[in-house]
């Protein structure tokens, strides 16, 4: 529905709240920045089913090609076979816990990888069915409810526990998604890229939060779509961190990164990620945590 030219947001999902008018947020041990690294394990399908929605500019293989697109499919698969292990080692090296956004096709078809992530203590959050089937307004409410349910059930089946968080493939949502996620037992969502702090969403009786990602620092958005150089990407990461550290001294900030193992996990890119994380963790004033830990702490502060 078009906006009505009245006070506040033009949707019902959260209140208008400029960052300058909020009470100070304090992270554990006086940290100014809560650092969350979300690693995306998503599958691109050989042929998506009829009626599914895949974004037109879905990256990989340098450019979309006609079917069968071996290049794009396999370029993305690099993340599952190689890149993820490089990034998990990197996070370990810097003492940063991983939050893994895992789609149902990965959960069901990569048991080795699922067990590996569990054994390394990663938090696993919902990530839909596949990147070739994102949530969109094309879905009916029942379809969307079923989609969310089956994504969650796949994770429960593969990991033995229900995900607390959700990050839709390609940030895909309809105008009902936060409500349906809350109804399905999800506590926080990473699709909303509009803040530097968690915030409550108005989904009903159960508390439900947005954990915003910094979209400009999304590795695919930066390096595959906007053609940012690896060196510039590293600089954007460290300069963002430095600013957040400064601003977070008076009111804590979140630095949540969306990383794709097939992109930033490539041999020539991983060094930049290493250097940037090294800068952040050396500087101090940072609390590296999973999505759940950050939302949990935020909730305890604002209750």
């Amino acid at each position, binding site marked *: 529905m078009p906006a009505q030219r009245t006070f506040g947001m033009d949707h019902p999902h959260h209140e208008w709240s400029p960052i300058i008018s909020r009470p100070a947020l304090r992270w554990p041990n006086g940290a100014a920045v809560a650092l969350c690294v979300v690693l995306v394990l998503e*599958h691109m*399908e*050989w*042929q998506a089913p009829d009626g599914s929605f895949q974004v037109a500019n879905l990256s990989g*293989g*340098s*450019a979309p*090609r*006609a*079917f*069968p697109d*071996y*290049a794009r499919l*396999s*370029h993305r*698969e*690099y993340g*599952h*076979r*190689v890149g993820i*292990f490089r990034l998990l080692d990197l996070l370990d090296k810097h003492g940063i816990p991983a939050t893994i956004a895992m789609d149902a*096709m990965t959960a*069901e*078809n*990569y048991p*080795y*990888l699922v067990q*590996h992530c569990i054994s390394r203590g990663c938090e696993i959050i919902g990530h839909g069915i596949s990147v070739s089937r994102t949530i969109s307004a094309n879905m009916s409410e029942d379809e969307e409810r079923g989609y969310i349910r089956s994504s969650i059930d796949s994770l429960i089946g593969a990991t033995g526990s229900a995900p607390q968080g959700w990050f839709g493939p390609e940030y895909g949502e309809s105008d009902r998604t936060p409500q349906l996620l809350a109804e399905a037992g999800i506590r926080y969502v990473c699709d909303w890229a509009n803040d530097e702090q968690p915030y409550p969403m108005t989904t009903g009786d159960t508390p439900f939060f947005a954990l915003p990602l910094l979209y400009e620092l999304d590795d695919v958005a930066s390096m595959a779509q906007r*053609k940012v*150089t*690896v*060196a510039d990407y590293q600089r954007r990461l460290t300069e963002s961190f430095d600013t957040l550290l400064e601003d977070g001294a008076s009111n804590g900030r979140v630095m949540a990164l969306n990383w794709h193992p097939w992109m930033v996990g*490539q*041999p*020539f*890119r*991983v*060094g930049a990620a290493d250097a940037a994380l090294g800068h952040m963790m050396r500087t101090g004033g940072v609390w590296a945590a999973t999505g759940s830990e950050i939302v949990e702490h935020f909730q305890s502060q604002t209750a």
Partner: protein
Amino acid sequence: MALPPDRIDYLPIIDRPVIKWPNDARVALWISPNVEHYEYQPINEGVRDPWPRTPYPDVQQYTYRDYGNRVGFWRMLEPLDKHGIRCCVSLNLAVLEHFPEIAEAMVERDYDFMSHGIYNTRYLYTCTEDEEREFYRDCIDTLQRHTGKQLKGMLGPAISGSVSTPDLMAESGLIYHTDWFHDDQPTPIKVNSGKLVSVPYSIELNDSSVLRDNHYTAEYFADICKAQFDQLYSEGAESGRVMCIALHPFLIGQPHRIKYLDDALGYIMSHDGVWQTTADEIAEYYIANYYDQAVAHAAQLGR
């Protein structure tokens, strides 16, 4: 359940047979110039338009590429020769028929060749299986006739293919396919008969992606080649890695770019432990030494 196209078994890089290259090299390095010809007046078969900018001919785009054969190729040979590189050319086979001096220069240097189709403006998307079989026969015969060499592998023409491509390649006696970007090591590809492996080509360290599609500088291209090498060289101490640099004479052979190829090759070739080789040799070595182990290991992991 295997995900379609069910060509590649899942083998995580951290859990697979350790690869030892000849002389304990850490990195098998292959350099792949794409020696191509794009037709002046190709046929548009309706899947991909060879010259989408104008009605045919598109003299600007045609000559931009043909510059590679008249000038760029010869300039590109200088740094390749200086660093003693024996290339594995990704070859539009009709080049051998159109431009004998290029054929002679490549044969004289004992380059290896993989098919990159007959012309870069003729794709495999619309081929029937019999037409595709005939295509492989043509590629094999043409290479044999002009170079005396047996064709062993293919990068699909303009990275196109059909659903049956791997089966038909193997049936025709080819042993490697380089349209897969899922790994830093060779991997078995499941086919109906024979043995086929992927040898990692690169969609990232590729002047077409980096310089033409994504508008980066040649200095950046050299930088990422060096960074890629450093990472793979470090990891290759444990288990051998493959690194490919993909070139196009009309791009890297431009006067403002050529020195950066010299720079990247000089850096890489100054290291010990580099097996400067070709995709033909990598595929043969892998099949002789690791193919069976890899298949067995994947079966075990999948259980």
